[in-house]
């Protein structure tokens, strides 16, 4: 791996992670009252792990993201979503008909509660799947190979790119 970023970058990244995750949960929870929801919240939650991996290197980031757990969370979110739909079927309603949870005769406020819990449930499912999927995508795509696809190979290219860039901007007279 390339050397990890400076102490300052690592410190700020570590301190920022809980706030990012808290914000993700806020986005999830306030999807009913403002813009947001499980999808955006899940992406923001996943980005906190990406930040860790960028600041501390792939291996250190991976330690915070148990492979098995996230492999399980991705389908679990889908199952939670579909499960809520099937529960509605079981209690006599249509697929994903949240009002079925409280029955026909319930008053207005109770029906709102049923919608509320149904929505929170499916948004949680969306968030689980999106978070786990994005983390899987990032960590699998950026996995440093034995050949050094992410780390070692890039340094030489970086140097070349730097030279190319400076030559282009300085308008080298012999070009």
């Amino acid at each position, binding site marked *: 791996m390339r050397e990890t970023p400076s102490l300052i970058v690592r410190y700020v990244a570590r301190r920022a992670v809980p706030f990012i995750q808290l914000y993700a949960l806020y986005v999830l929870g306030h*999807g009913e*009252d403002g813009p947001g929801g499980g999808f955006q919240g899940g992406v923001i939650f996943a980005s906190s792990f990406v930040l860790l991996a960028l600041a501390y290197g792939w291996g250190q980031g991976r330690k915070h993201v148990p492979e098995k757990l996230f492999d399980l969370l991705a389908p679990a979110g889908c199952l939670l979503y579909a499960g809520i739909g099937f529960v509605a079927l079981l209690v006599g309603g249509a697929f994903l008909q949240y009002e079925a949870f409280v029955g026909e005769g319930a008053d207005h406020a109770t029906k709102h509660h049923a919608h509320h819990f149904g929505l929170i449930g499916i948004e949680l499912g*969306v968030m689980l799947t*999106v978070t786990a999927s994005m983390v899987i995508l990032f960590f699998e795509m950026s996995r440093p190979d034995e050949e050094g696809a992410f780390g070692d190979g890039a340094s030489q290219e970086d140097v070349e790119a730097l030279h190319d860039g400076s030559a282009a901007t300085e308008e080298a007279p012999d070009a």
Partner: protein
Amino acid sequence: MEVLILAILVGLAVAAVRARDLMASVAILGGYSLMMALLWCQMNALDVGFTEAAVGAGISTVLMLAALGRIGRREVGPTRAPLLRLPLLTMQQRLRRARHLSRQHHRSSAWGAILVCVLVGGALLYGTRDIPQVGASDSPANRAGSLAEYYVTKAPEEVGPANMVTSVLGDYRGYDTMGETVVIFTAALCVLMLLRQARVRRGDERDA
């Protein structure tokens, strides 16, 4: 305001195509997404804007960078002069450059591509003449008795949330949203099958 954002969008798109350094291209595309997010917000589509900012400008930029780590950051192909130097070239130099470029690509294929671009672009421009103005009251989406009117008037009462987008996504169209979630899961599944399985197989061969 919208004209300004659109102008920036076009500029960023051209810059992204011209950049030889793929890392720069990806960064410019991130900026492009951010501008798109602004445009959505300008059109009062806050949920879409939020998603664009989080997904388009945020995580997909990171994913593309991760992909660059695998394929290398330099574009291969004929070299090109930087855009800034183009106006400084003399006519003769430009002709030589054009001839040089056209020799590398087959001439007829380039003309075919231009023809297709002009035809499709013209058809699209012709089609936009029939599109109603954004927010026009007599457009099919906003006409009295339309589905949009139903959602706007009934959603707070029937479902509850103040954000109607959530009501539509999670409740009226809950089935679609479930499909979208499965799509995301499928993407992760594909990457697992392609990348991790390949690695596991390689590892097995090395051990054997």
